[in-house]
């Protein structure tokens, strides 16, 4: 019995739930005098997995809580399919969410937790059994959640998010506490859900954790938007050609002829050329009669790019 086989049938249980875009516009949130989120705007598209990234304390959870109507923005808006969360009738049929710091009563069984959510959300209680089997917790259905590991709690959260067979999934740090096998399972599960046309928004403070899962990234730091782009754009930024030359001006002029090429000076006196491979740079240098002291292709770590974007390396 594989998880992959389980999720295929269950996830399309009702069908018809189409993903809707998530739109955050000018979102600002002050907690007292602390500015947690500052004029944040981004869009999350259906049919894709979007990573919502930023270091701890960047404002990710606050943004998600604003989106889900738990925290009131001051000012700004966060909508799902153009509607505020409280304007969606029986919202868990449209948006499934799992937030950090969502708790369980330790004395309540997993299946009863799901039944309570299903009942109040206007969802058929039989879905509790379905989603519990989707996340592989059927054997623990009757056990008290107090005895669950962090990984099991994460799975139970996910089961609760899936109860209404929603077109939009909002998951806050879903990989926390999962073992490597669990992370691999989560990855294929989320890819599958997005493949069905659902909108999947996943937050994380570690890019490498979701790097193989996400199509798009929204990166924030200190409440501000840093980047919102397809992951491939970030990946491209990791490839470059390191060049060392005493004739930097001439080389830059020579490379400027080619479209999409950038030259970024580095602290150690070298430059990194992006948008051209080592052969192209070498050829350009030869044509322009530029003397080279070093020429090599380099790939930087994606996590390093992420850290430099969010300022995590310096602050």
């Amino acid at each position, binding site marked *: 019995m594989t998880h992959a086989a389980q999720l295929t049938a269950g996830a399309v249980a009702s069908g018809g739930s189409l993903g809707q875009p998530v739109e955050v516009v000018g979102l600002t949130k002050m907690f007292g005098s602390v500015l947690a989120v500052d004029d944040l705007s981004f869009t999350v598209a259906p049919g894709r997995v979007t990573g919502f990234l930023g270091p701890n304390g960047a404002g990710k959870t606050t943004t998600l809580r604003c989106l889900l109507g738990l925290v009131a923005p001051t000012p700004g808006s966060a909508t799902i399919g153009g509607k505020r969360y409280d304007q969606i009738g029986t919202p868990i049929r449209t948006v499934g*969410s799992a937030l950090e710091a*969502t708790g*369980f*009563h330790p004395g309540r069984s997993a299946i009863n937790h799901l039944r309570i959510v299903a009942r*109040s959300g206007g969802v*058929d209680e039989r879905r509790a059994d379905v989603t519990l089997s989707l996340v592989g917790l059927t054997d623990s259905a009757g056990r008290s959640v107090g005895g669950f590991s962090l990984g099991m709690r994460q799975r139970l959260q996910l089961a609760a998010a899936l109860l209404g067979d929603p077109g939009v999934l909002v998951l806050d740090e879903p990989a926390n506490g999962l073992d490597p096998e669990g992370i691999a399972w989560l990855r294929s599960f989320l890819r599958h859900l997005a493949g069905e046309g659902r909108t999947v928004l996943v937050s994380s403070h570690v890019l490498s954790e979701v790097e193989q899962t996400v199509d798009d990234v929204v990166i924030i730091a200190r409440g501000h938007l840093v980047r919102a782009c397809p992951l491939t754009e970030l990946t491209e930024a990791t490839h470059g050609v390191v060049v060392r030359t005493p004739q930097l001006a001439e080389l830059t002029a020579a490379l400027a002829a080619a479209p999409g090429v950038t030259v970024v000076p580095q602290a150690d006196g070298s430059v990194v050329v992006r948008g051209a491979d080592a052969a192209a740079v070498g050829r350009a240098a030869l044509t322009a009669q530029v003397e080279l002291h070093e020429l090599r292709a380099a790939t930087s770590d994606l996590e390093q790019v992420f850290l430099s974007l969010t300022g995590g390396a310096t602050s």
Partner: protein
Amino acid sequence: MSTATTSAPVSVEHRPRLVSSELLKVTSTKMWLGMLVGVVIFIAIGIASSIFAPEQPGFAQPRLTTPEGIRNLFANAGGAYLFAIIIGALGMTQELRHQTLTSTLLSEPHRNKVTGAKMAAYFVIGAFYGLIGVIVGYAMAFALLPLKEHTDISVTALWQIAGGAILGSGLFAVLGVAVGTLVRNQIAAILGILVWVLVIEQLVVTFLPKIGKWLPGGALAGVLQTTGANGTTYLPIWGGALVLLGYTALFATVAALTTQRRDVT
């Protein structure tokens, strides 16, 4: 295992979905049973001590040979209100303590509906405690009374006390939910309730009955038609019931207003 057969239609509309969800919250953990045991023990002790306690010459409590005294004995069956207000407060503060409020509000973002459903559910739980209290209390009273010299109680009084006990416990449970909404710390809420109900209110009702009869506990004494020391009487049944309803409505409104825009983090 074929997963296709386990798939169920997703949407379902059974009307009091929020109230029934709240009731399942209560019955899916063991606390309500523990409190029910408390109700039974508390009322058993109340009835037994009321029958067997020696007469206190200085402090003229009505005796079992008087109609007031026999009413007071049966009014002990209304003791479930204390447990009702506590379980109501626990029901609300637990959501904060275990952080289940988030999933509650994700299912139903309209907070007034959630608060209203919780109050309705706890009214049912409180009234059930009241009913069990009446059954246990009456059974014990009728079993033990033949051991003592006593007068008979009218059937009307029995019905009045039973009705008052059930309604009173239900309303006190709603008051508990409101207190839990306002005093969000669980321990503070429970301690506050115990100090108020068992100490402050008892003192005011006993020594300043003209003020005390207007307090929730004094109003309940009116509903149960008890007679205090030295023949003190409280509000008539309908008056007591109205005062109790008034407190419940007031607290429920304040509770609803304060939760409306509060951030849940």
